[in-house]
């Protein structure tokens, strides 16, 4: 209960009006940069670092944390309304969220994202406060082979979760995996498939691909379909707020998303995206309305949004306890700590408890502020959809292009945006799902590196992959996830699957 008294003390520190102001500035800025594609929380904090020099360390760090949480939240707004994910962690949100928005349910989609983010942020921040020292021990036990097993599980659950046709889904996934091979191989430092273009040496930027495929591909598709009668976007149908049924379908997804997202965020080599993929796959499998997935299922927004905010809190576990930044924003926050002469690590909790607990407490406050800030804005945001279509899509194209140049000012990046946009258009025309391409690009390099690291450490012994209890368990789950549905289907018991899913619920 020592932690509890520290937290109370922290809350009283964070209630200082000046610190509250810093937190408010942080979440407002964070939401704004999350909405803008290309300008991420990492860049914002980097820009603000020199400004905060000489100011109160507690206030500055609280502001940075607010930007981080705000950015995670803001990314979902553009994903849902404009199909333009601002951050890679909100790519999955675009899948169901944008479908909901087009069917006039943008309000509930934004609401479930906001409330889900709040609840996940709340639970995960409390988990950070009380479980950090234990979670970090488990996270450190994850070696390359365990990561590889986790990636295998993600691949299998994800590839079965997207799209109606397994064949088309797999083709999309492999396009993504091929794109993932571009760039310098991290383990040998050699360039692959870069064709002498220096901008390709670092591989293909995930946000460029996602924005191109989702936003540009969509814009081209809409433009191409204009002659043949267009699908109507309904701005608002029914209530702007969530109905009782929306609540009933959302709350379990929020909790599951939190449980999936937090530990994955805490892993030193995981990314917030993986949690969102797994959450989406889990929701699709457990949903009582699987037919709605792909057409705007609210669980598909609620789960991943909760997962990405829980991950954001999760990444603070290794940062505060080990001094290990696991995301770009966390890396800058580490630089922020160092600027004030604080070295995050095992000793920070001992040497500076007031600051650490103040930070954790202000995360709780920032989280509440985000909810208060964002819920009333939903009504305003959904009005964006009433803008006439040509204007809206022209705006999206400008927005997407600007964001891409902002993040990486080079003509090559713009050319990639255009090419992937056309690719997204063609895939849409032929009915191939888009999301697996992006998923392949994100997971491909992680799986490859971890596999090769594992084999290198074991000097080529393949059995090492099942050599730890963790990896063996995860791989066993993967095999089950692959084989069981096949066997059931072969026995003509396809309907048993949906029944099973219903019982598990």
């Amino acid at each position, binding site marked *: 209960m020592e932690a509890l008294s520290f937290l109370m003390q922290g809350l009283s520190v964070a209630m200082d009006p000046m610190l509250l102001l810093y937190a408010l500035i942080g979440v407002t800025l964070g939401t704004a940069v999350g909405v803008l594609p290309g300008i991420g929380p990492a860049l914002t904090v980097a820009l603000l670092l020199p400004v905060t020099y000489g100011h109160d360390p507690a206030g500055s760090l609280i502001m940075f944390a607010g930007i981080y949480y705000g950015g995670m939240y803001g990314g979902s707004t553009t994903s849902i309304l404009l199909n333009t994910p601002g951050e890679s962690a909100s790519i999955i949100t675009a899948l169901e969220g944008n479908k909901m928005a087009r069917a006039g349910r943008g309000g509930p989609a934004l609401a479930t994202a906001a409330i889900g983010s709040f609840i996940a942020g709340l639970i995960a921040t409390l988990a950070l406060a009380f479980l950090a020292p234990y979670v970090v021990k488990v996270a450190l036990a994850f070696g390359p082979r365990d990561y590889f097993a986790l990636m295998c599980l993600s691949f299998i659950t994800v590839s079965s979760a997207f799209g109606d046709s397994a064949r088309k889904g797999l083709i999309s996934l492999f396009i993504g995996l091929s794109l993932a091979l571009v760039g310098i191989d991290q383990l*040998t430092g050699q*360039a692959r498939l870069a064709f002498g273009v220096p901008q390709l040496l670092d591989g293909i930027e995930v946000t460029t691909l996602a924005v191109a495929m989702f936003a540009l591909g969509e814009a081209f598709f809409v433009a191409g379909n204009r002659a043949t009668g267009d699908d109507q976007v309904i701005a608002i149908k029914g209530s702007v707020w969530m109905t009782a049924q929306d609540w009933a379908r959302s709350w379990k997804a929020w909790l599951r998303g939190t449980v999936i997202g937090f530990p994955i965020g805490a892993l030193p080599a995981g990314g917030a995206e993986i949690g969102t993929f797994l959450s989406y796959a889990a929701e699709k499998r457990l949903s009582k309305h699987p037919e709605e997935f792909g057409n705007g299922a609210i669980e598909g927004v609620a789960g991943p949004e909760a997962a990405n905010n829980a991950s954001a809190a999760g990444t603070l576990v290794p940062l505060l306890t*080990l001094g*290990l930044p696991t995301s770009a924003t966390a890396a800058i926050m580490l*630089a922020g700590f160092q600027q004030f002469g604080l070295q995050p690590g095992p000793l920070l909790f001992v040497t500076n408890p007031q600051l650490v607990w103040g930070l954790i407490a202000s995360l709780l406050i920032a989280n509440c502020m985000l909810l208060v800030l964002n819920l009333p804005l939903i009504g305003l945001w959904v009005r964006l959809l009433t803008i006439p279509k040509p204007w809206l899509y022209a705006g999206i194209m400008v927005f997407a292009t600007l964001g891409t140049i902002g993040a990486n000012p080079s003509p090559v990046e713009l050319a990639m945006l255009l090419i992937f946009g056309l690719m997204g258009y063609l895939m849409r025309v032929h009915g191939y799902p888009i999301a697996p391409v992006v998923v392949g690009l994100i997971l491909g390099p992680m799986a490859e590196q971890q596999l090769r690291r594992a084999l290198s450490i074991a000097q080529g012994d393949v059995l090492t992959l099942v050599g730890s209890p963790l990896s063996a368990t995860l791989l066993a789950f993967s095999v089950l996830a692959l084989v069981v549905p096949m066997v059931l289907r072969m026995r003509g018991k396809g309907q048993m699957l949906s029944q099973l899913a219903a019982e598990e619920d």
Partner: protein
Amino acid sequence: MKHTLFAGMMAAALALPAHATDYMIMAPASPGGGWDQTARTMQEVLQADGISSSVQVQNVPGAGGTVGLAQFASQNAGKADQLIVGGFVMVGAILTNASPVSLADVTPIARLTGEYEAIVVPASSDIKDINGLVEKLKADPGAVSWAGGSAGGTDHIAVGLIAKAAGVDPTKINYIAYSGGGEALAAILGSQVTAGISGLGEFKAQADAGALRILAVTSDERIAGVDAPTLKESGLDVVLQNWRMVAAAPGITDEQKAAISADVEKMVNSDAWKTALETKGWANTYLAGDAFKAQLDADIASTSTVLKDIGLVK
């Protein structure tokens, strides 16, 4: 209302780079890394001490700094207001990526800071000192896995040099590359690898907390506050510093170069710079003029040799 807001944000975004500056410093890396922090610290100190009234930092990340370097060299010939931050990692990256642009295409001004490497094992390891590690390496080079930063970077080069100095075939080393010292740290703490190697700053806190044991450092002399021998006194003739530098555009006149060098020297001697270095834990290894030129050439030559020895450069 929304439209005006949007247009305003766009205008602001577009207007930003057009602002007049005294110095534009390019950090050829993403925000948050060592080069970015160096550039932003320079910005802070140059402005705070009135050496320059307005300094801007631009990030052009990619490929160990070679993307930024190529852009810098091709666009800024003769421009005396342009600076780029770089370092030892860039030397290796230019070689491994067979970059068409090298440090010979810019005007190096001075080395600013440096950090020595540390070789560590987890506290639970049965390896007690650097000799124990070298014994294992000699017995079976493949059985000793080293976690460190990116392939061909300072950490990898250091392992190659250690192997060479110990009389072990450098092509046999089992180096596990991570995206940075931080990610490698997790693998070392979790005992996933035999040993770890990265900048001392990455390991210091964990070593102080007793989770890691520092076996040796790559400095010339022992480092105050670090309870570990140098490689040199352990019989391995390896001294390696991961340094950071600042360079100016190609094709500037000698007068322009002298003016920039004077500004940099003023910055290095300011109290603000010293304080900033202290809080960040960077050592001041300022070296300018011909001495820096000679050191740079020596580093490029030795890096090129060791990268060929490891087999990363043909």
